[in-house]
């Protein structure tokens, strides 16, 4: 039986209180949201915080809403809430697609959006989805609020720009008409982490790709993105040939490592193929087609 080492526990009653607790308890203190990444790491003694600051009471971080052209998603929104949100599904099917295949329904009831991004696991699905849509992360500290593009949020495996006495409060996604998006993942079995996964958002001007975002996870892509493939596609016709070529570029520029989920060449192949599939589905949705979310 594995249990965490000893620690102190404090419950935050507001964002300001959480920041104050982080400051008072110092660098060995950690926020806990769903705890579905942190508690397993504490059981393995990979993480040994001296103090846990529980942010589950912060109702101010649980909202999903539309506000002057932005989709705003609170850091404490649970995976299941993101999956079920009609407004999210209407504007960004990529999140519905991704959430259908993140962990399992019970884990999704408790794990949070903010915890996923801050965990910064190199195989995290939402990091790739938010990277694809070029979301903005809102971070609060004692001196106020700052915003950071999600593509600059992760500084390495398990590392982010969030400081020791800061808290991620919200993700903001700019909404632009004429777009479509999708996410597609290969896992070893239902509920597992990705062997590889790709997300795409695409805007069409007639049959021309006017803008595009591509996110990749589990394959060592810088910033969870395939920027070279995006640059290639912009201004090109939205055709099978373009999407296949973009997939090949994404595959060439990512940097997977071999592990129990597969060897490098297989993961690279998947990065390309899944990029192409995500683009194809995103383009169909941008053109107004109803494309079902794939099952888990």
């Amino acid at each position: 039986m594995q249990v965490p080492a000893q620690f102190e526990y404090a419950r935050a009653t507001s964002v300001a209180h959480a920041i104050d607790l982080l400051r008072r308890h110092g660098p060995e203190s950690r926020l806990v949201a769903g705890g579905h990444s942190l508690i397993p790491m504490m059981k393995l003694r990979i993480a040994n915080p001296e103090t846990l600051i529980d942010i589950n009471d912060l109702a101010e971080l649980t909202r999903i809403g539309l506000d002057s052209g932005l989709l705003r998603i609170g850091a404490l929104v649970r995976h299941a809430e993101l999956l079920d949100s009609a407004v999210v599904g209407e504007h960004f099917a990529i999140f519905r697609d991704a959430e259908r295949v993140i962990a399992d329904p019970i884990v999704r009831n408790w794990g949070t959006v903010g915890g996923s991004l801050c965990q910064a696991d190199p195989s995290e699905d939402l990091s790739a989805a938010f990277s694809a849509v070029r979301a903005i992360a809102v971070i609060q500290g004692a001196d106020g609020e700052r915003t950071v593009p999600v593509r600059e949020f992760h500084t390495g495996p398990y590392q982010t720009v969030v400081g020791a006495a800061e808290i991620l409060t919200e993700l903001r996604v700019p909404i632009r008409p004429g777009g479509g998006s999708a996410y597609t993942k290969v896992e070893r079995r239902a509920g597992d982490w990705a062997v590889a996964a790709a997300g795409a958002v695409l805007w069409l001007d007639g049959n021309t790709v006017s803008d595009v975002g591509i996110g990749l996870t589990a394959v060592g892509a810088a910033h969870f993105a395939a920027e070279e493939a995006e640059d290639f596609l912009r201004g090109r016709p939205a055709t099978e040939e373009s999407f296949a070529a973009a997939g090949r570029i994404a595959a060439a520029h990512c940097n997977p490592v071999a592990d129990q989920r597969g060897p490098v060449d297989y993961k690279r192949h998947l990065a390309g193929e899944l990029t192409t599939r995500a683009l194809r589905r995103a383009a169909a949705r941008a053109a107004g087609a109803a494309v079902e979310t794939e099952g888990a």
Partner: protein
Amino acid sequence: MQITVTVNGAERTVEVEPRLLLVHLLRDHLGLTGTHWGCDTSNCGTCVVWFDGTPVKSCTVLAAMADGHEVRTVEDLATADGLDPIQQAFSDHHGLQCGFCTPGMLMTGRWLLDRNPDPSEQEIREAISGQVCRCTGYQNIVRSVRAAAELSQVKGARA
């Protein structure tokens, strides 16, 4: 630290270490051994209980997080009138072999039926996809949940 948790409708005040997991609070401190504990990786789901009405893996929630909240365990399913339809259906349709995964399956199954009284086989499989049956009795588990849906509908129609 002292916590007060409403477990199956009754307030329980307990002195605990912050590192105590909810599953161990239930089993070791409150004697509610119906909830099982089966892995260290948050994968098996035999520990599923309801937290404020939503199923969670209680091995991955701190007891301290439940302070001031409501927890419902498998012990709360049966009433003075007898078994919950989901329990009756598992009994009738051989939904358990060794029974180790059963508490989690029952709590998830009950929740699914409360939200979706007429789930398809696919919806049932998806709902229990985060739970493992080492006896691999999935066929009968799915059949049992389906039968519980039908049992409840018959009862509802009679009432």
